[in-house]
């Protein structure tokens, strides 16, 4: 089989969106239906072989022993029959294995491409989706719900088929032996199926309660362990022991209920099924004595009827479990139906880099909830290579404004032109290649420092280039001081970097990326005073010949910019360079400037007072 060589057939799971969940699940099986059907057919062959074992036994009893049918000598005949049993076992086992393997291929294959699809889909969903959706919830869905679907395909879908096939094939065989016997063997089956479904629904509920109590217990435990200092500080050990004891005991009681249910269901249903079976035996035995059926018929019947009756309870269980798969399908489709951000769509498909001329014309933006403008009527124009600073307090719209440039969000009013072309005409991917962002809170991935510097650079880079970038970002020496140098893993498994160090790694990354437009989002705020000068120097080098947006809150950081915008509640209240803004007495810029001067003076007074 070619199954062992991995192949990840791509499938757009958006095609599996359907009101009817079963239809949706069936669509998910695209490309795997043949193997799924083959798995089911193999099961049928396997079940047929099992049934044939008993028919062969019947032949052995009736024809060979009773009637004396022979192939060669008596011993040879017995040998043939013996070989027949072995052959049937091979057929049964072989096809059972084939079926299991095909079912695994189906379930694991579908799961793999579902995982791949979800991963890719999620990273292509919009910024707004991500800011609205808690990470924990997404993770829960892509792990537990995917696993529930895997079980649906590997166990439940096949399991229902297996039990149903087993039932009908064995039933057909019994009916073939004797219709009367066949009909009276299934009297309790519908009842039992109903009872077991009823029971497993109940038990699922009781189990959920048991699990809920387990969760309560875990929370108590977790809070106790994380708050161990509080517990010790208030010497509350006994109180905590009592609290845990209460939860622990309650869980024990819930477990007891659950076990009582199980310990009643299994033996009680055993009685019902056993009665049915025994009734069949007596009925069959009388028929055999009366000559209505042969002894062989009876022996075969005794073997076959077991496969008819007892799996019914599990059918009830499996049917109840499929509802879990259905719920998971719906939960995953909630993600799948979200619209992706088109990365490559754009009216223009430019060849080379942008020059970096940017013009805002009355730009406004509001989030899709549409309550109020986050920024409104912003207009300015800067030439390639110039720098523009945005000054304002938290919530003034600085970050929202720069987020428009890489099209993380699309503006809702006005125009933004880059090199004279409307921003929304550029493909998002192209824009993001042209723009480098040094974020306020640097995010590194748990991989080596080298990989973090190379992350998203998207071209092959020599070792020298990486080190040059690290040097320019004033981080090279720090990296070398780590035991594994550039191969040091960042995060829990390796070293923990300080905020400033992380920041410099992201600056090195941006240097390598070499974008035409640069956004520095309060990039020095997370940095300790000693390294601030170094980073400032690194950033100044980076800004050369690039159109740069600087977001800052200190005059010192913005005064050298070619253009300064002062923002307040999304509105641009002042625009100009440092000199001209300083002259606008009563303006916000002047006010901030004065405050900062005053702080220096107050500090002097404070110190003078101490002296």
């Amino acid at each position: 089989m070619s199954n062992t060589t991995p192949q990840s057939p791509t499938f757009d799971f958006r095609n599996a969106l359907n009101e009817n969940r079963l239809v949706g699940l069936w669509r998910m099986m695209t490309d795997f239906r043949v193997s799924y059907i083959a798995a089911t057919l193999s099961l049928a062959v396997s079940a047929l072989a099992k049934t044939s074992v008993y028919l062969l036994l019947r032949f052995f009893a009736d024809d060979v022993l009773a009637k004396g049918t022979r192939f060669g000598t008596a011993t040879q005949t017995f040998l043939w029959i013996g070989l027949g049993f072995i052959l049937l076992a091979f057929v049964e086992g072989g096809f059972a294995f084939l079926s299991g393997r095909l079912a695994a291929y189906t379930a694991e294959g579908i799961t793999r491409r579902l995982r791949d699809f979800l991963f890719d889909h999620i990273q292509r969903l919009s910024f707004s989706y991500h800011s609205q959706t808690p990470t924990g919830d997404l993770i829960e869905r892509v792990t537990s719900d995917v696993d529930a679907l895997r079980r649906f395909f590997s166990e439940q879908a096949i399991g229902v088929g297996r039990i149903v096939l087993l039932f009908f094939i064995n039933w057909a065989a019994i009916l073939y032996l004797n219709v009367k016997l066949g009909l009276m063997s299934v009297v309790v089956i519908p009842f039992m199926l109903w009872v077991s479904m009823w029971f497993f629904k109940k038990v699922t509920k009781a189990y959920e309660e048991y699990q809920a109590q387990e969760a309560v217990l875990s929370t108590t435990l977790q809070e106790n362990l994380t708050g161990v200092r509080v517990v010790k500080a208030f010497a509350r050990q006994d109180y905590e022991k009592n609290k845990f004891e209460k939860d622990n005991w309650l869980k024990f009681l819930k477990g007891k209920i659950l076990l009582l249910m199980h310990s009643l269901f299994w033996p009680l249903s055993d009685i019902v099924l056993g009665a049915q079976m025994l009734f069949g035996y007596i009925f069959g035995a009388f028929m055999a004595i009366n000559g209505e059926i042969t002894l062989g018929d009876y022996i075969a019947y005794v073997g076959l009827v077991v496969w008819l009756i007892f799996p019914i309870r599990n059918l009830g269980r499996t049917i109840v479990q499929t509802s879990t798969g259905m719920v998971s399908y719906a939960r995953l489709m909630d993600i799948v139906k979200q619209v992706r951000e088109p990365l490559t769509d754009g009216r223009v498909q430019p060849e080379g880099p942008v020059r970096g001329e940017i013009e805002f014309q009355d730009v406004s933006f509001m989030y899709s909830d549409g309550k109020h403008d986050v920024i409104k009527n912003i207009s300015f124009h800067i030439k390639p290579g110039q720098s523009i600073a945005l000054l304002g307090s938290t919530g003034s719209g600085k970050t929202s404004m720069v987020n428009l440039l890489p099209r993380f969000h699309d503006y809702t009013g006005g125009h933004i032109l880059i090199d004279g072309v409307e921003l929304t005409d550029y493909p998002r991917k192209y824009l993001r290649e042209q723009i480098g962002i040094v974020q306020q809170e640097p995010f590194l991935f748990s991989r080596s420092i080298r990989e973090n510097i190379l992350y998203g650079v998207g071209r092959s880079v020599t070792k020298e280039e990486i080190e040059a970038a690290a040097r320019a970002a004033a981080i090279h020496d720090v990296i070398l001081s780590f035991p594994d140098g550039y191969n040091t893993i960042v995060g829990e498994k390796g070293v923990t970097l300080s905020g400033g160090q992380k920041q410099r790694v992201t600056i090195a990354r941006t240097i390598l990326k070499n974008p035409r437009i640069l956004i520095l989002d309060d990039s020095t705020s997370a940095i300790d005073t000693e390294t601030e000068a170094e980073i400032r120097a690194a950033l100044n080098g980076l800004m050369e010949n690039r159109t740069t947006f600087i977001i800052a809150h200190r005059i010192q950081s913005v005064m050298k910019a070619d253009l300064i915008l002062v923002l307040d509640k999304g509105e641009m209240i002042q625009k100009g360079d440092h000199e001209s803004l300083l002259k606008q007495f009563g303006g916000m810029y002047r006010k901030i400037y004065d405050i900062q001067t005053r702080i220096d003076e107050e500090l002097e007074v404070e110190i003078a007072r101490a002296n």
Partner: protein
Amino acid sequence: MAEEIIELEEEEYTSQLTAPVLKRIMQLLKPHWKWVVGFLITIGLTSSLDAYFTYLNKQMVDQGIALGNKEVLLRLATIYGSFILLQSAMIFTFIYLAGVLGERVQYDLRKLLFNHLQDLSLSYYAQNAVGRLIARVTSDTGRVSDLVTWGIVDSTWAIMNIVTSLTFMTIINWKLAIIVSIILPVMIFVATKFQKYILVEFRQSRRANSKITGAYNENIQGVRVVKALGREDENLVEFQELTTKMYRASYRAAWLSALFLPTVQIIAAIALGAIVWYGGVQIQIGLITIGGIQAFVSYLTFMMWPVQDLARVYAEMQHSIASAERIFKLVDTPPDIHNKPDAIPAQTLMGKIEFDHVDFYYEDRKPVLTDFTLTVNPGEMIALVGPTGGGKSTIVNLLCRFYQPQKGTISINGRDYTDYTLESIHSKIGIVLQTPHLFSGTVRENIRYGNLSATDEQVEEAAKVAGAHDFIVTLEKGYEQNVGESGNQLSVGQKQLISLARAVLARLELFIMDEATSSVDTLTESLIQKGMEALMKGRTSFVIAHRLSTIRRANRILVIEDGKIAEQGTHAELLRQRGHYYRLYTQQFRHQLEVQYGVSNELTGDDRSTVTADSIMMRREKPNEESVAAD
């Protein structure tokens, strides 16, 4: 998620010395031995009856049908029917006994572990990640209780079934029974091998699975960076490598499982073929009946179930034993800090507190404090300032006796504080942590944590003193408002106020505060300040200070650097020195005024560190003072 990764790590570890552990596991059952005897008898009977039913079928064929004797047949059927009833009663009993006993053993183990954890010292918590401890109490106890109940049930059933089946087979025809007993060990051997291979693949797939979860986590957390850098395509390729690994392992595990039963069955069928051939010959000479052959067919067909059960229990047993070893190791760990045999309760902490040439290091043995000496007068307010990692939190940890010095002494009222009982010290110290910790439950319950016997009025009085009352009454349900898991329904500032009220209620003599650096709105900030002042009035207090107002109010400021007092004195004295404090102060001053005038945001600073996937999943508290103390 975290637990799963920890489990995966720990599965690697199994000790060779299983016998003593096994013995100790069995001792867990001692108090419940009646239950064990009960389920052993009932499962044994159930299993024997299963084998007997097959024999009864044979008798019905041979004695009833073949001879045409309806009377015998009905008699046999009556026996059959009554045994079905008897067996049902047995099944009821063993499911109930074994199941409830399993729950009980788990309950016992959890109680034992939890109570022991309460007594362990803080140093233990610094060395062992919370996730690990949780895994100990939740999953490890589950595995052990499964082993001592269902593990025993399954293996007893399997062994009894095999033994009784063989007995009946011997009764029917001993020569054919020998064929079965030859093939049986082969079946068990093959089954055990299979289970081991399957387990290996299964573990591989679990490991791959946790990596997949990690990748999802990191990519979602860092989605803004991914988008900004346009790295979607490479990420997908990397992710596909993981899913391919996962696919390979779980596909292999699945088809090995699918191969397992058929293989065992085929081995059984070979025996069956031999029996039919040889038995046929014997029928000729009247040594076996057709009913006997039928019985052999049944016995062999169902033989795979006990074999499978045995193999499974055996394979899982190693994990359960490893779990038990970890549990016992925890239970056997004595607390580092405990009362001396002749310890006396401390009457009061309102006395002179002296650190006398104290040396201290954490588990990594890097010296944190060396030759540290300090004398504090009753009622004094001490502010500790200085860089992170300098030793501020360690001083506080030692003072609270969460740790004890390796060299030198700390004395209260002129007496070495290890002469006092831990409880008497702890019950007189109030601690307000940087990130306040609340428990699930109502606001009232959380405040009352400070003094369990406090009346409702006293709780509200304490809240008023701490400045928490005003915001509490604005909550939808006031004092009865649920604070959510770890108090996460409230803001940090609100949690801080409640934890202040909790400390007020405890009526303490020594007060320790680790001031929050994180942003709290100005109003809450001033409430917290007032609450602190109320709390510190007339008490000795230590504050790891970040706010200028707090620092200025202190009777004495200690600048702690590299485990030493770099500078000490009042605010004015230190400013005049133009040293460390001067630099620290001016920087802080500038920043604070900027915030005050609204021209700057609160510094997020280094403590809000980068979130990477594994730091989320395995937030391990490192044994450095920062995380131990600043929590």
